[in-house]
């Protein structure tokens, strides 16, 4: 909607301020504004969800304080105010702007469960680990899927094709958190292939980058290895199937035949002609998958006791730490929106048609 409004506003300026229109034509800028718009809508929705609906967290928090800790209603209200970062005495619209201003300064209120901790500090502690493990996992899965998919397309009906299709759809059928459990139960507890106890957490106790230097990296990879394995196993089948289907399609294109007729080397056809075009649908799917994998990370991290945002969410859920829940919902959405944005921009770099066909309005 922002796109439409701004487009309308930009139009009369065609003659007078062509620069404005030119700026608006910029694909990256429009995508960026769109991302901001989505974040604003989600933030607004969360605001009204938390404060307005019957049985909302603020009310529940006040009730628990009154009934369990014997606080007076006014006291409970005052403490809710401090935690949730809003003043119930002021008009709603004013509360809303205070809240939005807080968001702009990355102020998400105080955690109810961890006394004296700001929600944003907590999230800053946990989120990087999720981004690290999910990023590496998805990256590895995409690379393997790309290679497997191309092999499958070139040798359709071959042994690799059948094997990957069968195994891939089997692994896809297992919800990622159940696969994580199966890995822990069978690999860890039953056969002792790895030590689940020492793999807990994001790094071994006391190991920091400052103290250990480069030796820090093998350690964090060791701790992240099982979540990464889970992400790779559950998604690699889908990636290879998508890659296979798009490669098959590209192989039938005329320009591939022409390239062959021109006697270009096989390797060059595979990378510059087939690969570059076949990869496009994958890039657009990364965005869809990013949200899915980050969502699944809640379960996977909790299963392996990996201290990422999923574990934080899990503890917040158990303790009904509403401010942390609110913060995580917002931050994860922001992360996914920006992942989408990056995927869109990469896509437009790879495929210039996107930029030109969607220009202007």
């Amino acid at each position, binding site marked *: *909607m922002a796109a*439409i409004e701004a487009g309308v506003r930009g139009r009369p300026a065609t003659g007078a301020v062509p620069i404005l229109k030119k700026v608006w034509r910029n694909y990256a800028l429009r995508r960026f504004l769109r991302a901001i718009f*989505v974040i604003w*809508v*989600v933030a607004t929705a969360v605001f009204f*969800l*938390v404060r307005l*609906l019957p*049985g*909302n*967290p603020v009310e529940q928090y006040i009730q628990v304080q009154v009934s369990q800790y014997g606080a007076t209603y006014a006291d409970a209200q005052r403490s809710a105010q401090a935690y949730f970062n809003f003043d119930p005495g002021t008009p709603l619209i004013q509360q809303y702007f205070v809240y939005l201003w807080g968001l702009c300064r990355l102020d998400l209120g105080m955690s109810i469960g961890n006394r004296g901790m700001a929600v944003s500090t907590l999230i800053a502690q946990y989120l990087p680990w999720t981004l690290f493990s999910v990023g590496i996992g998805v990256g590895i899965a995409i690379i393997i899927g790309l290679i497997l998919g191309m092999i499958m397309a070139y040798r*359709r009906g071959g042994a690799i094709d059948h094997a990957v299709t069968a195994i891939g*759809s*089997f692994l*896809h*059928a*297992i*919800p990622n*958190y*159940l696969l994580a*459990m*199966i890995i*822990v*139960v*069978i690999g*860890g*507890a*039953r056969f002792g292939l790895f030590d689940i106890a020492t793999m807990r957490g994001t790094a071994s106790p006391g190991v920091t980058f400052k103290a250990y230097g480069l030796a820090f990296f093998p350690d964090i990879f060791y701790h992240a290895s099982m979540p990464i394995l889970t992400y790779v196993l559950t998604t690699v089948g*889908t990636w290879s*199937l*998508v890659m*296979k*289907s798009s490669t*098959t*399609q590209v192989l039938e294109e005329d320009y591939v035949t022409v390239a062959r007729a021109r006697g270009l080397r096989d390797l060059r056809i595979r990378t510059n002609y087939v690969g570059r075009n076949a990869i496009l*649908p994958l890039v657009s*799917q990364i965005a*869809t*998958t990013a*949200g*899915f994998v*980050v*969502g*699944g990370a*809640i*379960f996977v991290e909790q299963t392996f006791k990996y201290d990422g945002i999923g574990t934080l*969410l*899990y503890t*917040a*859920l*158990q303790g*009904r730490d*509403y401010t942390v*829940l*609110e913060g995580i*919902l917002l931050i*994860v*959405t922001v992360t*996914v*929106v920006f992942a989408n944005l990056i995927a869109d921009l990469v896509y437009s770099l790879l495929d210039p048609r996107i930029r030109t066909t969607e220009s202007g309005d």
Partner: protein
Amino acid sequence: MAQATVETATLETSVDSGVRSVRGSSLLSQLTRSASGFAGLIIVVLIVAMSLIAPLVVPEAKPNVNQIWSGPSSRHWLGTNNSGQDIVTLILRGGRTVIFVGFGAALLTTAIAVVIGSLAAYFRGRFDAIMLQITDIVMTIPQIILLAVMGAFFELNSPFALAALIGVLSWPVLMRSIRAQVLSLKEREFVEAARLLDLGTLRIVFMEIVPNMASFILINFIIAITNATYALIGMYVLGLAPMSGDNWGIMINDAWISGAMFNPNSMLYILAPVAMIVIMQLGLIMLSRSLEEILNPRLRDR
């Protein structure tokens, strides 16, 4: 992700010939010809039948303090759990909620998606634009986190509430592919003929256009069941779903919390429900993939 895969398939169909409609009986006979599709159908039918009939026939598993965590034996094929209940009985009786919630949520999602998707595509204009914006936004919020947070904010005390919540949160992806289908279908001659006969908008959309994509809706309904089951069991694993009665999700949660995995005797308590869910998901996915191949033969080659 399964949803994304189907969407690409949809685009291909809508580009060349719209949707091929295959009638019920021939669909079944074609399904029996594909090995994996037939196997998937059998698995799904068996699990659904078992889950619906078993609670009526098999008596409830009684706790027995003398038999806590006993291994597999002739009396208890899969052993017993931490309160001495027979695991086979729990498995047999535990599928009903999962099936009800899975089917119920999928039904709700599909219904919302079909109504909104087809109306948006038929009318276009402002309604369409607003709906697209909404789906755009809802699709960027990681569903499972939204579900978990909503589950924590508003205590869910019945499986029906859970089904409703899952159903209401997961329609946008399907709505988009339904919309794409209707966009191509509404240009066809029979729609024009219906319009010339002045049949009325609602009748044209829901009696003429929607039945033409019945098989497409069926496939997506099956995929919606797998997604709802994923979300449901996830809620149980997190402990956010109502924890009364016995079902596979509660078994997994209970086994995980009570540390069943460290005891070789009781490992089956956690593996059995996990296996049931995996088999059910696998059956549904095999079924939907073969249906897709039947309805869109060009996929077979891919």
